[in-house]
Structures are given as structure tokens and as C-alpha cells.
């Protein structure tokens, strides 16, 4: 299954947010989207998942979703978006219930995804008892439960402290290595982008335009060991973004 983003532009009222974005997400590929604050990354991701519709342009799917995929386009959110009144288990079963999966069938899926995210011991815990890292693991487990074809991740690690982030990054790489899902991964963190992305889409300051698409061929599994080699790519990205980031940071919000 492939996703094509075609000439997407968007306005929120007077605010021109995105301008003529086009790229393709291939099967099993991870695309990282980076760009300064407020350039429209989250907005773009909402278009890709069908949660909002762009002013012009369109997002197309080609090919069939793999059989057994309950929800081909599945999000992982920055703020985890767990229901605080449901246990870990309940949060996962939430997304199965609407597909009529209950009882032992649901149980089997829940067992499987919790095992894959190292959460088996926390089945009955409530979100408030979990650390940020664990919460995001639950969100990942929930996403895995619906067997997604494409994962849409909006800064999934940015609410975590950097050590936990490091740990989860490893886990994501491991998950991907076992099962080559495709993903759109929005981040501010260049280190993450070079650790995870097959392609990195660099957006300009608002209105977001595609400044460059950087491809990295190194296999994901090797990148942690060979970070030094990626240093240059990261620096290249930083040079692309530095001025724009500074300008975006200095912008006064025009709230009266």
C-alpha cells in the first residue's frame, strides 16, 4: 500500500499553513517530516490520516491494505491520547470493540501487542500509574492491535525525557525490523530523524513548503552503532533549518 500526497495546500482562515506539498510514502518505508514550529507538520499529518481535509490538493491511497488490517492508517499521538479511565488492557480493547472483537479473540490480540511492547506486567494498570514512556508504549500497543498498514506519528517521543526517548527509539527500530510497517514520523529532533527515516522531508517555515527531501540508505538496525557517520547528515539538516527555526521562534503570536 502506498500513500501519495499531491499538491496539498491549506489555509486556516487567513493563515496560510501549507503550500503545495507533494511526496510519496512507499510500502515499508519510514518518512520523517521535520520543520520549524508552526510550519504545519501536524496539520499535514492530519490530512494524511483523513482527519481533516486540505483546502486544495489531495492525499491518495494506492493498493490494498494488507488483509487483517483493521485500521490501515493509524496514529500515535504526542500526548499519548490514552483514556485515563481505562486500564492498559481497556485502552487497547477500545479500538477492537468497534470491530466486534471481544472475549478470547480480543484477549489474544491484547496479549500479543502487550508482549511486543514489554507491557505484559502492566495490563491492569491505569494510565496515571505509568511513566510517560510506559504510556507511549501503551499507545504503540494500541496502534499495533489494529494491524496498521501505515503508522502516523506526531512527535511521539517529544513529551518524554531524553533517556526514555532513547529507549523507545530502540524499541521502535526493533518493531520495525520485525515487521516492516510504513510510517510518517513528524519530529523536531534531527537525531531521531536520522535514526529512523529512510527519507527526511524538510519543510520551510510557515507556509510550509518542501525544502528538500533527504534520503538515507543506511539500514535502520545499524544506525545506533554508526551514529558518528550520520553526524554530517544531521549537521546538514541543522544548517538547512537553523535560520528558519530561529525566525519561527522569534515570531510573536498575534493573539490580541
Amino acid at each position, binding site marked *: 500500500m*502506498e*500513500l*501519495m*500526497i*499531491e499538491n496539498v495546500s491549506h489555509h486556516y482562515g487567513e493563515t496560510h499553513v501549507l503550500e*503545495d506539498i*507533494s*511526496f*510519496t510514502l512507499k510500502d515499508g518505508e519510514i518518512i520523517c517530516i521535520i520543520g520549524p514550529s508552526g510550519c504545519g507538520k501536524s496539520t499535514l499529518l*492530519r490530512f*494524511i*490520516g*483523513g*482527519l*481533516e*481535509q486540505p483546502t486544495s490538493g*489531495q*492525499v*491518495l*491511497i*494506492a*493498493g490494498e491494505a494488507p488483509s487483517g488490517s483493521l485500521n490501515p*492508517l493509524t496514529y500515535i499521538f504526542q500526548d499519548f491520547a490514552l483514556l485515563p479511565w481505562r486500564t492498559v488492557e481497556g485502552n487497547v480493547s477500545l479500538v477492537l470493540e468497534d470491530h466486534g472483537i471481544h472475549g478470547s479473540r480480543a484477549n489474544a490480540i491484547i496479549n500479543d501487542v502487550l508482549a511486543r511492547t514489554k507491557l505484559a506486567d502492566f495490563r491492569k494498570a491505569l494510565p496515571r500509574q505509568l511513566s510517560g514512556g510506559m504510556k507511549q508504549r501503551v499507545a504503540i500497543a494500541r496502534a499495533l492491535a489494529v494491524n496498521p498498514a501505515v503508522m502516523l506519528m506526531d512527535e511521539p517521543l517529544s513529551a518524554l525525557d531524553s533517556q526514555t526517548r532513547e529507549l523507545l527509539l530502540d524499541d521502535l527500530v526493533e518493531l520495525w525490523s520485525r515487521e516492516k510497517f510504513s510510517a510518517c514520523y513528524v519530529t523536531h529532533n534531527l537525531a531521531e530523524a536520522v535514526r529512523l527515516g529512510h527519507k527526511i522531508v524538510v519543510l*520551510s517555515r510557515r507556509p510550509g*513548503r*518542501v*525544502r*528538500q*527531501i*533527504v*534520503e*538515507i*540508505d*543506511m*539500514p535502520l538496525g*545499524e544506525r545506533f552503532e554508526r551514529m558518528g*557517520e*550520520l553526524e*554530517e*547528515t544531521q549537521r*546538514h539538516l541543522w544548517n*538547512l533549518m537553523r535560520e528558519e527555526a530561529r525566525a519561527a521562534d522569534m515570531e510573536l503570536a498575534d*493573539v490580541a
Partner: protein
Amino acid sequence: MSLDTTHAPVTSAAVPRPVAPSGARPVPFRGGGFRHKPLGFVGPLVFVALIALWELGSRTGFISPIALPAPSEAFAAFMDLVQTGMLWTHLEASLYRLVVGWTFGSLLGVSVGLAIGLFSFVRAGFLPLVSALFPIPKIALLPLFIVWFGIGEGSKVATILFGTFFPTVIATYGGVDNVDRNLIRMGQSFGLSWLSIVRKIIIPGALPAILSGFRISASIAIVLLVAAEMIGAEFGIGAYILMAGALFATDQLICGVAMLSILGLTISFFIGKAEKYFLNWRT
């Protein structure tokens, strides 16, 4: 770097455009609902429709005149008030009681609320008292109020004062409790004096809660107006309503009730303005 091939920088125009294969279809949209379209015109429409229906019901006799007067009759009663100039007399009397009772109730309430919020001893001593006295209906105390405050303006103002005092206390100390502890810690870390912290951090930080307490206490004050004007009031909207009730002049009754409702909306409008003005720093 053998495996790490950074492509030569390409400008956005040169980014290769994907070509959609023939079987491609748009992603399904699933973000609808749960968002409020502004339908400002519907509100007035519903109002007008309801009043028209009511008038129609009254005219055709479907609504018995004993159960409810026609809106036109209530309006006629209002025009009577305007023409005889009694409107201002009643309004003036009620507003005076509201303003005095509410002002003192709020001032006292904010002071006591601050004390409860700031001093452990006051809190421990007074909070149970406030919780115990809050649920007492002021109307039950009217006979005592007559003895304590007389039948003049005293008891009327006191009724409103007591009614507004407790919710203000509760809103204020709640506000103080909710002031971001980090801001207080920041003040301490810069060596600000106790008074500076209270004046510059705690009071402005509690202001949103205090203002929303004012909103509540204002509506309580209006509700209590009728009870307050039960005792020896010649003029006032509450007295007007009570008199209409005694004479079973339902047109005047509905007219008075509508005036109270409008008064309530007006006050809450002004408090909204005050919030906008004082809390313009909020996001």
C-alpha cells in the same frame, strides 16, 4: 560515509512529483462531527418562535389565561411600568440593594477567602464553619433577619450580602489554592517578601477564580432579590413580583420575572467584559 548518501540539495520546485497510479483513491475522511458550527441566528429564531407560539396559544385559548398570560399582556404590563415611570423606581430600589449587598458580600468574601487561602489556622477554623453555613437557605432566616436588621434596607441588603458572601469565600480560597505553586516558588527563589508574593503573584493568580465566583454570586444575588424584598419593601422588582403574585396579576408577574432574567443576563455580560479586561493575559 559509504551508506549514508545525502542527496545534493534540491529546491522545493525540483522535488520530483509523485504520479498517482490508476487505482489510487483519496483517503477516507473520518474527522467530522463534534465541532460546533456557529449558528447564531438559531437562538433568536427559537426565542421568537416560542413567543409567537405562546401568544398564539393564549389567543386561541389553548393556553388558559389562568395558567399563563399572553406575552403581549406581559409586554403591556411592562409598557405600563415605563409610562408610569415606576420602572425606574423599582429598578433603582432593587439595584441599590443588589449593589450594596453584593459589594459588601464580595469584599468580605474575598477577604475571608484570602485569609483562608493564606493562613493554615484560619483555614482550619473557618472552613468547616463556611461549609456548614453555606447550605442554609437565607429565606429561612428572614424572621431572624427582621429582628437583627429591621425591616428597612438593612435586612434586604443583609439577605443579599449573606447570599453572596459564602460563594465568594469558596471561589476565592479555591483560587488561591490553585495558584501555580511554581510561581510562588519562583517568587521565593528571588527572595520576594511575603507581601510581594501575595500581592504580585497570589492575588493576580487567583483573580480568574474570583471573577468566576463573582459571576455565581451575582446570579445568587438576583435570585435572593425576591426573598429580600419580602420584608417591607414598597418598591423593587422583587416587591413588584410579590405584589403581582398576591393580586394574581400574572401579566405583571411574568413581566417582573422577565426583568429579573434580563437583569441577570446584563450583569453576566458585564462580568464577561470585566473578565476580558482583567484577564486579557490568558490564552
